[in-house]
């Protein structure tokens, strides 16, 4: 059976011109199957590095990462990634962008009609059926990020990894996409790890918020369970006492325990 994600004593050292740089130091993290975890921390704290480790895009210099009890030795279709900069291929339509992965993962087992159906289904899930034939330059930033989500979901990953997916969007678009993500997660129950620097976003979406200390040698500073009933409603939560408690905890960690890094070092 699926056993989620395990990050075991993972360290990352980058070799730079100024000598070795310890980005992450002995991080341990267990994510249960179906759990939604947010990684939060200041810029440069290594939260994206941790996500890349789980994705297999970066390999640890020490320690191991396991996904479903299997050692992560590289990227794989069991882990879908939504990138910070949507990263759509500009020469492909939205449909083709999603279809590329679908064909790769299911192409050997299913016929063309079934594959097309999968891609259409993923695009419908993010309400982009009408934009399927459009190119990325023809659609808005929010829509691009929706395609990115559809692309990651279409390959039916066990784990969904999101690297500040809504960071570049305006507040209203971001809220709409957060609601959409919550709905999709209710439907498909993936394990989710999401990097964010938005405290409200983390509480709204996550079952657990992992707070990371500032780098270099970043590690996990605190681990907060968010015990808010689902489905969650952002308007109701605005006046929720428990929400305010969580918010205060996170803000205290970020701005009292961890100093805001100087802009030059981030």
């Amino acid at each position, binding site marked *: 059976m699926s056993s989620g994600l395990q990050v075991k004593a993972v360290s990352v050292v980058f070799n730079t011109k100024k000598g070795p740089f310890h980005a992450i130091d002995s991080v341990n993290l267990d994510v249960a199957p179906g759990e939604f975890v947010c990684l939060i921390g200041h810029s440069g704290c290594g939260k994206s590095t941790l996500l890349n480790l789980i994705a297999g895009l970066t390999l640890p210099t020490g320690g191991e990462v396991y996904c479903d009890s299997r050692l992560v030795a590289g990227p794989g279709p069991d882990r*879908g990634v939504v990138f910070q900069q949507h990263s759509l291929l500009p020469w492909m339509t939205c449909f083709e962008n999603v279809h590329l992965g679908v064909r790769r993962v299911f192409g050997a087992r299913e016929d063309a009609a079934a594959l097309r159906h999968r891609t259409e289904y993923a695009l419908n899930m993010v309400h982009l059926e009408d934009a399927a034939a459009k190119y990325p330059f023809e659609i808005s930033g929010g829509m691009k990020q929706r395609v990115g989500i559809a692309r990651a979901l279409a390959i039916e990953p066990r784990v969904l990894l999101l690297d500040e997916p809504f960071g570049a969007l305006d507040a209203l678009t971001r809220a709409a996409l957060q609601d959409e993500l919550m709905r999709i997660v209710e439907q498909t129950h993936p394990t989710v790890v999401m990097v964010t620097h938005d405290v409200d976003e983390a509480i709204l979406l996550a079952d657990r918020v992992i707070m990371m200390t500032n780098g270099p040698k970043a590690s996990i500073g605190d681990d907060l369970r968010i015990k808010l009933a689902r489905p969650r409603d952002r308007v109701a939560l605005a006046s929720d006492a428990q929400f305010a408690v969580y918010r205060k905890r996170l803000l205290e960690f970020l701005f009292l325990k961890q100093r805001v890094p100087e802009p030059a070092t981030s």
Partner: protein
Amino acid sequence: MRGIFDRPWVLSLLLFAGFVLAWHLATGSSQGAPTAADTEYAKMVGQGGAAKQSAMPTPADVVRRGAELLSQAFDRNGSNDLGIGWHLLHSLARVLGGFGIAVAVAVPLGFAIGLVPKLYAALNPFIQVLKPVSPLAWMPLALYTLKDSGASAIFMIFICSVWPLLINTAFGVSAVRQDWLNVSRVLGLSVWTRIRHIVFPAAVPMIFTGMRISIGTAWFVIVAAEMVVGQSGIGYFIWNEWNNLQISSMITAIVIIGLVGLGLDVLLVQMTRLLAFQE
């Protein structure tokens, strides 16, 4: 009404008119009363005092000769007397031939060296040494080995087109955005799918930049090549007219070379717009 002089093309037109006027005044004056100095000079070179018309044509001469050349552009009076249109077509055929071979060689090779850094490192010294060699330097060697002047001209076009294409393709392939490569890695695409659907489309703009540089250089070189080896072509035409001291024809040919070169460039820009991705 004040705005009319702000338009760039109005200024261009004025500059052109000014240039033609200056040209006309400069060349037209020697037709009239020769100045004292001219007479002295004419005496010195033994042509007596008779006013001799300068070989430099007036703008009107050039226009007249140009119209004449264009009206007979595709005349064919024996193999040694072709219209200027035929010469132009011969030049274009050589350029497109050499350029086509260069594309066929340099794009796959550029792909290979862009994908395999070791191969790039191994071939780079040769590229760096051969790239600055003027294509004309290859001419005698080409004539000796290929034993055909037409083939030699095509070879010269090939050799001058190949470097920008090779370097630009290799750069385009090796500098594919990391984001896109990460997409490929995360989706677990096969090597072939990655090359076909990610690396190639991502490199297309750079490949076309290489093509633009190459075709421009090729159009440069063809004139020189044909002056040396040609029995036809626009370069040969200019050299031939120079031997006949037909300066009006030479000037007409220069203008035509410029316009055709511009046309080739515009064509490639349009092709880039059609085939390269938009962001």
